[in-house]
């Protein structure tokens, strides 16, 4: 046949002769170089002939393939490669058509070597920048075929690996060729992505590290000899090129693949893949990935818990990467979505199986991880946000909150605690904005003792700035041994505690009044107080603290409801705090006095000292006065260091400080400074209800009086409600001490109104607040700002 061609060669077109001449008689001899040069020269000088040359080469190769003369096929392909490389950009598209047909022809053959050869040529082509892309070219077949090659199951392991590598390489080529120009082919089309993505993942999942915990995908080397490594490189490239509209097209097949190949449990590979995605994706789209994973969690709502837990865990492992880039609404959306999952999980299974708990933990971890990587101001936002999701409208009702609510509360508080531990307080006033502090204080009086413990733990982590938390978990009278880290309180801190101390102390006091307390509750409140002392202790604030501990001692002595063990616990934390306060504020005679009581107790009543026990046997509850903290002596100690005269003279505070029980309210001494950092809406709003402070009889501003006022106030409001008529009746006819107890479930009102009053006291000069009106002047219509932020706080 060839001889025939030779004889009639003179009649053949020149380009055909030139093409024929590059083939040797014997294929092993390879391309005839001289003749190839002639062909090249010809095609460069007559570029309009390029398409015919290409077509003829293709036809020759087709014929050779069908006759299994692979040697000639290889030569034809080589010639095409050289022509492609030599072509000028403008004339390239004349040639591309036949070039790609040639590649396809070779890919269609069953010979792996031809397939690999074709792929190499294709990749060379893919790396050429075309002036005028071949818009009519379709890459459908290439995507399909290369994806298929990625799954090669050739019996020969070496060949299998080669084919798979070629498949990956081919896909990379298609992506590179098409990604920049949608007119060429929309490679992001699901038809393509559904093939490309699983093909890459299938190769990746066979990697060494994909089943190890600590895979480090950070520094890949383009290893073209290792299919998993190479597939990963391609995956990065693909993800890196995805713009916003395309991300889902990549993520969806990833999720589907992980589902299909059961790669969630265990989730090493899932985490690995998602890390790769997170590290490769354009940073402004990171959030989309998180969102997609979150949606996937939704879709798995009926799946086994282990799968959901694994997905949530994967989320927690990548979410931090997104945190750095997430801004504004997307942050809260993520948090909100996580909280929703928690809520669903809680409502799904009230009995909380172990698996369900693991799932919830994974979600909470995700939350914590996310928060951990947000700037601090956003952490505060998140804590506020979580707090706003805590259902506590029911807390307020006389009946106890539903079991689901309690669970949700505790889950949310756990999340809050998680976020809180990632947050480093700098100034207490930025951490404890009223809109956050108020609901937290309210929760600190929850009827569930566990919950109260959680709230105190949240306080601990947020108050503790000097890592004293572990030293102060248990009360002790040996302060020196603790080696406390103490820094002088800053001005904003002191202003904060001046302003909010009373409501905090009030809540802690009331929390200690609750009869469902156990040792842990008492201990945790001790820790809160001790941390406050350490963080904020100063001559300016010592008085309120001491007043509180006097009140606590009083509570231990007079309460008829608290059990004896808790009473002993109270005495023990009273003396521990006294010693601590004296030390922190460095009041030596108070230290001496404290130590004296400690010694006395040690001899006569060691049960009034730490450690706290839940059971004390049959000890008498009678306590001789020498074992108690005496107000008069404490007062004397303070006077000796000149505290009272310097700080408090000229105010009403001295009148009712230590002489009156519970009178730790006034702080007019720092009115002017209180103004400095105000400016929060909360304060403005509170200040806009002048009627509040007008009615307050300044001279008798004591705990009792405020409590009475507030009780009356809530009494009035309740009368407006038919269904609560009975209660108001009760209120009017019950002796005051009992009334206090009865109103305890209504502490919300008490708290919010109280804080409102405190706010007013802080910003209003005393002179304006003398003559009073009636309590009913506090109109419900005057909504404080924090109720606007958190409508659910509004209990009426």
């Amino acid at each position, binding site marked *: 046949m060839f001889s025939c061609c030779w004889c009639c060669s003179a009649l053949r077109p020149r380009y055909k002769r030139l093409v024929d001449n590059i083939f040797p008689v014997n294929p092993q001899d390879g391309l005839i170089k001289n003749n190839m040069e002639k062909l090249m020269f010809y095609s460069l000088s007559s570029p309009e002939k390029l398409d015919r040359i290409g077509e003829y080469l293709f036809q020759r190769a087709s014929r050779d393939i069908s006759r299994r003369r692979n040697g000639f096929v290889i030569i034809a392909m080589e010639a095409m490669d050289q022509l492609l490389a030599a072509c000028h950009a403008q004339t390239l598209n*004349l040639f591309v*058509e036949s070039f790609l*047909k040639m590649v396809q022809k070779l890919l269609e053959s069953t010979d792996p070597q031809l397939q690999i050869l074709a792929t190499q040529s294709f990749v060379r082509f893919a790396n050429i920048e075309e002036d005028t892309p071949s*818009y*009519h070219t379709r890459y459908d077949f290439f995507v399909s075929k290369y994806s298929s090659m990625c799954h090669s199951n050739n019996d020969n392991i070496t060949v299998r690996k080669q084919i798979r590598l070629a498949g990956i390489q081919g896909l990379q080529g298609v992506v590179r060729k098409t990604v920049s120009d949608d007119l060429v082919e929309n490679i992001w089309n699901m*038809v393509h992505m559904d093939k490309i993505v699983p093909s890459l993942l*299938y190769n990746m999942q066979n990697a060494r590290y994909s089943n190890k915990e600590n895979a480090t995908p950070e520094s890949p080397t383009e290893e073209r000899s290792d299919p998993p490594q190479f597939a990963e490189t391609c995956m990065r490239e693909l993800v890196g090129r995805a713009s916003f509209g395309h991300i889902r097209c990549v993520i969806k097949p990833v999720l589907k693949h992980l589902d299909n190949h059961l790669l969630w449990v265990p989730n090493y590979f899932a985490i690995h893949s998602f890390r790769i995605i997170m590290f490769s994706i354009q940073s402004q789209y990171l959030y989309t990935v998180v969102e997609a994973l979150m949606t996937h969690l939704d879709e798995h709502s009926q799946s086994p818990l282990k799968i959901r837990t694994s997905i949530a865990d994967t989320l927690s492992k990548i979410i931090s990467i997104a945190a750095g880039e997430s801004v504004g609404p997307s942050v809260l959306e993520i948090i909100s979505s996580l909280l929703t999952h928690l809520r669903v999980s809680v409502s799904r299974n009230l009995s909380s199986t172990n698996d369900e708990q693991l799932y919830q933990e994974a979600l909470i971890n995700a939350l914590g991880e996310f928060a951990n990587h947000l700037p601090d101001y956003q952490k505060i936002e998140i804590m506020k946000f979580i707090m706003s999701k805590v259902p506590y409208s029911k807390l307020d009702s006389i009946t106890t909150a539903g079991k689901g609510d309690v669970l949700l509360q505790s889950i949310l508080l756990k999340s809050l605690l998680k976020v809180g531990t990632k947050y480093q307080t700098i100034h207490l006033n930025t951490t404890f904005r009223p809109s956050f502090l108020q609901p937290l204080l309210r929760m600190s009086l929850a009827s569930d003792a566990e919950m109260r413990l959680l709230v105190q733990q949240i306080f601990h982590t947020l108050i503790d700035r000097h890592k004293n938390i572990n030293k102060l978990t248990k009360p002790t009278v040996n302060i020196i041994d603790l080696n406390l880290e103490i820094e002088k309180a800053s001005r904003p801190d002191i202003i904060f505690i001046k302003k909010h101390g009373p409501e905090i102390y009030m809540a802690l006091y009331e929390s200690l009044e609750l009869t469902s307390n156990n040792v842990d509750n008492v201990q945790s409140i001790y820790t809160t107080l001790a941390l406050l002392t350490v963080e904020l202790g100063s001559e300016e604030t010592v008085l309120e603290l001491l007043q509180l501990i006097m009140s606590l001692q009083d509570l231990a002595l007079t309460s008829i409801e608290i059990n004896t063990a808790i009473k002993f616990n109270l005495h023990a934390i009273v003396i521990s705090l006294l010693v601590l306060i004296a030390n922190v504020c460095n009041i030596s005679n108070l230290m001496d006095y404290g130590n004296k009581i400690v010694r006395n107790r040690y001899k006569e009543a060691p049960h009034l000292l730490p450690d706290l026990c839940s059971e004390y046997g049959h000890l008498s509850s009678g306590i001789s006065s020498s074992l108690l903290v005496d107000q008069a002596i404490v007062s004397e100690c303070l006077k000796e260091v000149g505290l009272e005269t310097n700080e408090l003279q000229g105010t009403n505070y001295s009148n009712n400080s230590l002489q009156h029980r519970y009178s730790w309210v006034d702080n007019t001494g720092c009115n002017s400074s209180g103004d400095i950092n105000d400016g929060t809406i909360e304060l403005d709003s509170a200040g806009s209800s002048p009627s509040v402070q007008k009615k307050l009889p300044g001279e008798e501003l004591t705990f009792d009086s405020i409590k009475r006022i507030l009780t009356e106030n809530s009494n009035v409001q309740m009368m407006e409600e038919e269904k609560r008529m009975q209660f108001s009746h009760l209120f009017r006819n019950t002796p005051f001490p009992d009334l206090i107890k009865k109103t305890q479930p209504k502490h919300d009102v008490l708290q919010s109104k109280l804080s409102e009053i405190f706010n007013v006291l802080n910003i209003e000069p005393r002179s304006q607040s003398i003559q009073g009106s009636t309590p009913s002047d506090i109109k419900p219509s005057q909504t404080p700002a924090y109720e606007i932020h958190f409508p659910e706080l509004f209990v009426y």
Partner: protein
Amino acid sequence: MKGLRTSIIQEKKRTEFVIMEDYKFLFKVVLVGNAGVGKTCLVRRFTQGLFPPGQGATIGVDFMIKTVEVENEIVKLQIWDTAGQERFRSITQSYYRSAHALILVYDISCQPTFDCLPDWLREIEEYASNKVLRILVGNKIDREDREIPTHVGEDFAQRHGMYFLETSAKEAENVERLFMEIAAELMEQARCKELPRYEQNTTSLNGKTTSIGDAGICGCSRLS
């Protein structure tokens, strides 16, 4: 500038490539069905004329090509052989869409492979073009231990508007016929609709490929 250039080239292509291509029709055929029913063997028997001894299960998707002659026309069949296993479902599904014909295979000696057919049909409904030519194939008729009588398979095919054929890849029973009839049927459909033929799009590389399935079906004869 770009656009102009392209249109010139496409013009060129239309006039020239018709003569140059070595086939007139290109059809994509996809095989589906449980793992082990003999899909790969059917393809191998047809494309290579052999019954492969103990090859591994297909992973993902396999590809074969075979050129046949129907009524003096050259027809190229692109055959995509899919893995039956559940875990490859997402990648295999992605091949359904562009299929002109879907061959759904079960093993006549294995009831469960027949019982899964409704699931496969659901898959096909969801992912393939609704005009795709669907053929039900009961394979391994050489086996003695038949569990699915022919008429049961036939009934099922009829109820679901599918063509039906029983084959043996091992004994080369009906294998050639299966693919040849598919080729003929698809060619008939292509002609009925007087669609632009594949010679105009030559390979799937070029121009817009008009899928037969996409463009509606006409009353064509059934495989008998």
